[in-house]
């Protein structure tokens, strides 16, 4: 457990507190399989906060806002630690944005965004227990489980 933590990378990002069942989803949405960077994946680790959690460490990689937005949709409680020179430079907890642009596909096949070259825009409703996305164009609502990344 200890040696799995930050010690392994000189610089890069550690994504911690990923719900156990979402680890592979995070790998997929960030396309880490095709990454040139070293990626360490820890799954089903014991966690006080989440009971079972996952950790992903990516060397030489600092995620951009739209990538962090993606993470927030599948792992809203995740934390991001930025490592430089083996030191923790910055620690942040991902935040679900109010609006998601461009990264999610609308699941309504009759939505104009699936027929024309348009950047999708969803308004995020986090008031309800599970996260919901409402398409700005067709006004249809998607549940968290229905989210498909473009």
């Amino acid at each position, binding site marked *: 457990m200890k040696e799995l933590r930050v010690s392994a990378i000189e610089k890069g990002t550690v994504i911690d507190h990923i719900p156990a069942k979402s680890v592979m989803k995070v790998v997929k949405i960030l396309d880490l399989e095709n990454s040139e960077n070293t990626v360490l994946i820890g799954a089903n680790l014991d966690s006080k906060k989440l009971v079972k959690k996952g950790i992903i460490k990516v060397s030489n990689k600092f995620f951009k806002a739209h990538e962090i937005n993606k993470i927030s949709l599948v792992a809203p409680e995740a934390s991001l630690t930025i490592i430089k020179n083996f030191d923790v430079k910055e620690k942040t907890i991902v935040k679900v944005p109010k609006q998601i642009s461009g990264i999610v596909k609308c699941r*309504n096949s*009759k*939505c*104009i*965004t699936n*027929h*024309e*070259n*348009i950047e999708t825009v969803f308004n995020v409703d986090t008031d309800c227990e599970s996260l919901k996305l409402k*398409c*700005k*164009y*067709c*006004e*249809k*609502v998607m549940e968290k489980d229905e989210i498909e990344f473009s």
Partner: protein
Amino acid sequence: MKNRSLISINDFSKEEHLKILELAAEFEKDSRQQILTKHVIASLFFEPSTRTRLSFESAISMLGGHIVGFTDASSTSVKKGESLRDTIKTVSNYADLIVMRHPFDGSARFASEVADVPIINAGDGSNQHPTQTLLDLYSIQQTQNTLENLTIGFVGDLKYGRTVHSLLMALSNFNCKFHFVAPSFLQIPEQYQMFLKNKGLEFHTLSNIHDVIPDVDILYMTRIQRERFSDPSEYEKVKDSYELKRDDLSTSKDNMQVLHPLPRVNEINIDVDDSGKGYYFQQALNGVYVRQAIVSLILGLKK
């Protein structure tokens, strides 16, 4: 409302809805005011909808306006693969306002983002048809002299009926009570029931039309399509209870009126037409006045 697009019914506030109705009443008294003679309005029907198109074109023509456009996309460059973005950008140069009907949900919102002129949504797929909602509101107001504290019965396909959903949202601002009459699998969706609950409005879901007739001020009928039923015998069972006949109205209140977005098939018997209770043809005519009001407010010709 000057220079604003009308895409969804919720784009305009309750006060703005009332303003449109007030102006529609002015046009009902005089629908031939020559105020549009200097304007060109594009009417882009990417899918045919004769009723809606004629209503818009009639509204505009009566005010002296000029119309350009197409009645179905098959004869245009759209067929050659032109994007909606390019069609709208181009037509923006030719007209002061665009009225559009399109088969895809959200197309009107997208058009309003790329157009240099305001857009009026005349129906985007199964999503919105705000001018229909406003003419329904106007018809309710004309028959009841108010929109407040009414009891409205919605009958038919309440699950897929876009006109019902929008009208419900609009009427929720007026403290109305609702009866939803439909076979269980075509009942009003959960999200609208939640919406009404959260607003603290009273509503009931029922399956028999006769239970609500004595209670309602407005009976809003919609079409039930036979194709919606997977079991034909189920259709035979409910069919009769949703075919409104003149005799069924004997228990109704004096002020009660029957509305229908048209076209009807067999959900209202023709013997209702001249019973004094059938308002649907006047309702369709009201669409002209309401559309005149919307167009003149958006073009800034009326305040």
